């Protein structure tokens, strides 16, 4: 079967920020902001990123432990976001989650056996003896003993408890397991055991697994493919070894470069990433990583290296956020004396020093703009300085939001997004008969068809915003074939066509890699 088990498309989860008794919405935390990925049967996908990047929220919303704000989650041909209560319960039997902290995920007053059997009971298995048989069998499979089922959580070490956690997730024979930081709370000496166990169980049960982790080492150890997240978005997906050997996104490079390596001869070689992750309630425009990116793209008008450009942009960002304290700079420049006594020249030099800027930028026009802005800061006109800097030092990384571009094709980001949207829509109809497919198609394309004519190729293209022709000829051929199949009512064939052609592709969202 070529269709993935799980296809998540355009997943969004925003948390409103409210104020006052009336709980007026004053803002929203964009925890997950348009995330798409697929997981095949028997595949392990890693979701990595810093804390706060939304990786856990992706998991909880995809499993509908929380309601997604937008987006589709297609699980085995059905859209999970449209499930009612009953269907949801059935779905949860097939998709399980294992949490980071094995200690807090067990009821201390229930024996291990009761805890592991609980999902069976919840899902309606009344026969106690049968439950015990299943639990005993499973405990043995995860490396414990059947007799352990009458013991209590406190009698187990962290690693053993995590084994029990896996047994509990497996007890109702799921197809998909989400493991949220499965080994982060464990000592390194037992991490390898649990990771081995996860791999074994996957092979034995043919599971699809999503491993969420901040630890690149863990991800490299167990995952087939990896999706890297930053501030609610996926910035790169790639097969694991490719991602580690040849990362395409600067953020991935920075993340890998920051991971300490157990080799003292390679110390200090990592990328130096400055600053904190910005708040997801107010993400930067354009590429969300541009405020920290060491490879941020200089404006074409200047001859300036990436490092200096980074420094200039840091000054711009800080000035814009009102973060330049002129008084403090003056005090510093005056050597701790009366700030009023500081020479303007010394103040300018102090700012350059603070931002690692050279005494003079190599590019004449850039230098003119910079010193002009510095002059305004010196006289206390930070707003004017901010304006000047914003005018003089634009970057495409801030101006335009880069979309994910598939590496092996000539598709643009928009085309690729449209194909994925189309494909996911098809995936929800794979079990429908031709009449229903046509009916759904008619409704989907209603806005695009005039009263006379029925739905045709052009209407489908317009409804799904698929330009004709696409910029990649293979893609064009495949999408054309899929549309033909769809118009014939064969949604499954159409979906298969697209999943076959665009199997998991390597993607990255960076202006450095895009093609226009």
């Amino acid at each position, binding site marked *: 079967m070529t269709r993935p088990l799980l296809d998540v498309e355009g997943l969004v989860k925003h948390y409103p920020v409210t104020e006052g008794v009336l709980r007026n919405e004053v803002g929203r935390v964009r925890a997950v902001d348009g995330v798409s990925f697929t997981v095949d049967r028997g595949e392990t996908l890693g979701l990595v990123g810093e804390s706060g990047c939304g990786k856990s929220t992706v998991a909880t919303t995809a499993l509908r432990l929380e309601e997604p704000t937008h987006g589709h989650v297609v699980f085995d041909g059905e859209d999970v976001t449209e499930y009612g209560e009953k269907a949801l319960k059935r779905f949860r039997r097939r998709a399980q989650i294992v949490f980071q902290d094995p200690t807090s995920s067990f009821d201390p007053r229930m024996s291990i056996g009761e805890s592991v059997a609980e999902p069976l009971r919840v899902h309606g298995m009344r026969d106690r003896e049968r439950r015990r048989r299943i639990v005993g069998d499973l405990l043995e499979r995860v490396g414990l003993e059947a007799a352990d089922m009458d013991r209590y959580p406190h009698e187990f070490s962290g690693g053993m408890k995590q084994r029990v956690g896996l047994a509990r997730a497996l007890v109702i024979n799921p197809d998909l397991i989400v493991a949220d930081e499965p080994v982060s709370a464990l000592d*390194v000496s*037992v991490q*390898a055991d649990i990771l081995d166990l996860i791999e074994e169980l996957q092979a034995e049960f043919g599971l699809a697994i999503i491993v969420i982790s901040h630890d690149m*080492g863990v991800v490299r150890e167990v995952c087939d493919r990896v999706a890297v997240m930053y501030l609610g978005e996926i910035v790169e997906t790639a097969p694991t070894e490719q991602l580690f050997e040849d990362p395409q996104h600067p953020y991935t490079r920075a*993340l890998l470069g920051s*991971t300490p390596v157990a080799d003292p001869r390679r110390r200090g070689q990592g990328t130096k990433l400055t600053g904190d992750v910005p708040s997801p309630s107010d993400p930067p425009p354009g590429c969300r990583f541009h405020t920290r990116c060491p490879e941020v793209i200089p404006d074409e008008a200047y001859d300036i290296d990436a490092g200096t450009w980074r420094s200039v942009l840091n000054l711009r960002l800080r000035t814009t956020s009102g973060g330049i304290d002129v008084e403090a700079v003056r005090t510093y420049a005056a050597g701790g004396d009366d700030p009023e006594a500081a020479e303007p020249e010394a103040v300018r030099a102090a700012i350059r020093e603070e931002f690692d800027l050279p005494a003079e930028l190599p590019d004449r026009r850039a230098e003119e703009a910079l010193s002009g802005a510095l002059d305004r800061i010196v006289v206390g006109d930070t707003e004017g300085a901010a304006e000047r800097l914003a005018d003089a030092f634009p970057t495409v990384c801030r101006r335009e939001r880069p979309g994910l571009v598939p590496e092996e094709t000539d598709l643009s980001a928009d085309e690729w997004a449209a194909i994925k949207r189309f494909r996911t829509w098809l995936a929800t109809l794979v079990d429908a008969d031709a009449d229903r497919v046509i009916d759904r198609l008619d409704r989907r394309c209603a806005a695009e068809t005039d009263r006379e004519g029925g739905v045709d190729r052009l209407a489908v293209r317009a409804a799904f915003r698929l330009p004709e022709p696409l910029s990649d000829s293979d893609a064009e051929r495949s999408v054309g074939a899929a549309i033909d199949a769809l118009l014939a009512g064969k949604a499954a064939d159409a979906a298969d066509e697209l999943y076959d052609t665009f199997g998991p592709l390597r993607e990255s969202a960076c202006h450095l890699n895009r093609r226009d």
Partner: protein
Amino acid sequence: MTEPLLTIRDLRTVFHTDEGLVRAVDGVSFDVGRGETVCLVGESGSGKTVTGESITRLIRTPPGDIAGGEIVFDGRDLTTLSDDELRELRGDRIAHVFQNPQGALNPVYTVGWQIVEAIQLHQDVTRATARERGIDLLDRVGIPEATRRFDDYPHEFSGGMKQRVSLAMALATNPDLLIADEPTTALDVTIQNQILRLLSELQAEFDMSILLITHDLGVVAEVADRVVVMYAGKVMERGGVFDVFERPSHPYTRALLDCLPGRGTGGARSIGGKLPPPTDPPDGCRFHPRCEHAVDACRAGEQPPAYPVDGDDDHVVSCVHYEPGGDPSVVRGEEAAPTDGGRPVGGDTEEDDR
């Protein structure tokens, strides 16, 4: 070589618990030289944190008790000091930074207030001077807009920034020794990287020694000058960072390196078994029940003494295979280091093996 700043000899820290006597630290010895970074590394339960806390007697007594040994800091044995004398030293010449910056900062006071308090506790300066120094410190630890952030409360800082604040507090009195217990474990790798770089910069700037306690060998490789590997309250191996990583000698050190995930070497191997119960450690080498090279001599008596590796007195290992006349290649396999110009260690058997 000049006198080390800190010398720990045969330190024994015990806890009296309902289950019996726990020998958390059982005969630990190592030095921290001036301006040097020493890493204490081990799994949880190895006694590394208790070792760090014993130095300034931060452990709760009772149930804890420093039952023996010497802790000589700059010529004075800290175990003989009174609580008052120790309090003067603590936070002044010896500062601590902990894993969780949240817990180290008081949420109801501004960070500036807390830094000023730390400065004024040990130095007789005016509030204004302390404030100025505090702002300078925040700036030094890399907090942008230090003047403005000075009057912010801890919750207004991110985790990495909070750790910077607690570093600033620790540095307020220009300590000679900084004891940092898992200072980056709660942080993201990108922020961890920043804090580790900052530590090295500050170390050079303030000319201080650092005792860094961590379970993360990656962190050790990044910052350590010397490494002390602990297991179940005992020191297993001790040496320069290059020696320990490139010629790991104790089976435990080797196992610890082998279980690191994702090194691209094709599969991490876990250490089978588990830590021995703290109230009833095994005889002989504490690691023998999990050691694949254990022989009868490992199972009886005391933990083996610290034997030099390849005749190097600065790289020692507590393993019977390294005793004079023993055969280290049992542990090190094919890549056993040749006997260099130093003192031959059991020459015969080694010759046979090659």
